[in-house]
């Protein structure tokens, strides 16, 4: 399947697609409003970007520092070169603890590694505890947005789902009522889990600690009740010093949801007495991306989702149309590095308007990288049908006479040509594009008559 095919499917339900578009724009608008209250906003973005430049140039050193300091503090550090090894490490810890049921807070990395199905195959019950993630887990779906996992669902659908799974009243779609039902259901899971898994927002080389941000408090509910905490972290999440958290935390929640900070920002430096803390440092394609000069900066991403909320394509095609763990503009520059063929349509799922780059809190040049991936993909695939019709058009613009004649001809022709020819499958440009109303005369003729 390709992005355009999936997007067309999403757009079948026009009312829901409109709601999706407007709701994400509302989140984008909140981000704008709160960022405008911080006079140094642009300086913060620049600082964050430069700190990440420094990190990417010294990643080996910072990872070694992190490992040394975390180990000193009593955290057990593991290294995984790929998803498979990551999953195997998690499973081996669970088996060692004889653990059959775990709770997990939001972690895009474990989605990327497909940890849930892997553990379930070994008979382990995995409960995602973020409300949105629990909802999509009930539906056997992946999250459709990295910050708002269930943004593709309406409350009526969630009401039906909870009626089936949690025996809530049929037809009661009040969000407070539904959230309370989930609270009761998940409370039981929190109290019963011996091992809790979390993602990581930031790992700090200087102190060997890591930081997890949530609004729901689900990460903390899980780990402080469990005997063992396993944190899963992509190696690019490292920052050099504790004081740098100030820059990233000022940007993260404001960019993500337009709030000044998440209600819980937890710093894990060492396990509580009698408990265990593990961290798995995962590569899974990140060192390869680090080696691609044009695309290296994509590793600066702090997973705020702002580029998705602003993207005219994401808003109108939904997260599932990308078929990659991270959807939207940032996903479209990260995923081709993992599998160029599978994700070959993603860099084309963009108007190249640049809004993603404008809102990115770490100043990733997302739209430029989208453009660069298109070239990589075209090189790998040969000439695309779109470029064929574009190069035909190009010849007309090169000669003034050809342009003049073709204009007159086109105005005459478009009126009489049947749609079947204009929207011919060979003319890929006509696909999902309508032609404008035709003017009676060219601008040149109009100018001669009125101003000449």
């Amino acid at each position: 399947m390709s992005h355009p095919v999936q997007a067309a499917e999403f757009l079948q339900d026009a009312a829901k697609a409109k709601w999706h578009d407007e709701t994400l724009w509302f989140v984008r608008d909140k981000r704008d409003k709160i960022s405008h209250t911080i006079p140094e906003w642009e300086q913060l973005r620049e600082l964050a970007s430069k700190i990440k430049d420094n990190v990417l140039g010294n990643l080996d050193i910072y990872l070694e520092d992190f490992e040394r300091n975390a180990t000193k503090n009593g955290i057990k550090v593991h290294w995984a070169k790929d998803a498979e090894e990551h999953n195997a490490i998690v499973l081996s810890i669970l088996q060692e603890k004889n653990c059959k049921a775990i709770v997990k807070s939001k972690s895009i990395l474990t989605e990327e590694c497909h940890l849930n199905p892997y553990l379930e195959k070994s008979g382990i019950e995995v409960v995602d505890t973020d409300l949105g993630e629990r909802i999509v887990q009930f539906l056997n779906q992946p999250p459709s947005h990295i910050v708002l996992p269930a943004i593709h669902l309406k409350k009526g659908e969630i009401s039906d789902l909870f009626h089936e799974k949690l025996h809530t009243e049929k037809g009661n779609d009040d969000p407070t009522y539904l959230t309370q039902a989930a609270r009761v259901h998940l409370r039981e899971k929190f109290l019963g889990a011996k091992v809790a898994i979390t993602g990581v927002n930031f790992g700090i080389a200087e102190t060997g600690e890591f930081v997890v941000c949530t609004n729901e408090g689900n990460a903390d509910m899980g780990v402080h009740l469990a005997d063992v905490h396993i944190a899963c972290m992509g190696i690019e999440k490292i920052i050099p010093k504790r004081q740098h958290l100030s820059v990233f935390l000022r940007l993260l929640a404001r960019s993500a949801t337009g709030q000044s900070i998440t209600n819980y920002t937890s710093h894990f430096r060492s396990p509580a007495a009698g408990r265990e803390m593990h961290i798995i440092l995962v590569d899974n394609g990140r060192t390869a991306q680090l080696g691609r000069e044009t695309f290296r900066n994509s590793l600066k991403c702090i997973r705020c989702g702002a580029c998705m909320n602003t993207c005219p394509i994401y808003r109108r095609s939904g997260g599932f149309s990308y078929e990659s763990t991270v959807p939207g503009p940032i996903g479209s520059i990260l995923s081709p590095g993992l599998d160029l063929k599978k994700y070959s349509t993603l860099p084309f799922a963009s108007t190249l308007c640049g809004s993603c780059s404008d809102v990115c809190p770490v100043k990733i040049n997302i739209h430029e990288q989208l453009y660069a991936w298109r070239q990589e993909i075209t090189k790998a695939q040969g000439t695309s049908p779109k470029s064929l019709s574009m190069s035909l058009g190009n010849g007309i613009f090169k000669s003034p006479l050809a342009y003049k004649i073709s204009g007159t001809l086109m105005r005459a022709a478009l009126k009489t040509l049947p749609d079947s020819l204009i929207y011919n499958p060979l003319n890929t440009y006509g696909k999902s594009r309508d032609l404008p109303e035709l003017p009676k005369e060219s601008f040149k003729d109009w100018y001669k008559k009125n101003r000449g």
Partner: protein
Amino acid sequence: MSSRSEILGKIKSLKLEQKPLPETPVFAVSNNLEESFVKSILSNKGEIWTLQELEGKIQSGSFPKVYAKVPEFKSFSNQELPSDPHEFADLDLAIIRGQFGVAENGAIWLEDSDLGLRAVPFIAEHLAILLDRNQLVGNMHQAYQKVGMAESGFGLFIAGPSKTADIEQSLVIGAHGARSLLLILT
């Protein structure tokens, strides 16, 4: 070869250009820290209470099971700190003291020594935090200067109650953790 040396080896072999760490400049902060802090807490859906209001509520029986870590409320505390946090599953109210607050976002800094158990501020139905009104900083840069190189095993900024907007972006207070954050400035 271990994955550790494979990953580190790959990075080292790239011999990437080293770019300097930038210095964070000093940014201006609110000239009325308390006013900004209160505004921030309220917008995070925290509540501002007085000592007397909380005392009154406890006396009226609103919170049957109370754990107070702070001397001001020791006489109201009817729960001992257990060794296993599961025993606090039905705790109605926890009262703790925060170290300092951040005006720009309403975040309050807490460490292991302030909590008793790490689960306390999450597992309690309601959370009251006492905070010295003279312990406020302007922004997160000042906040981390104050945290410095503190060596607590766990450190935490709390800025409001547990909340979610995962159902149609409708804000709901009381997701998994404390249903309210009652802030008392002393």
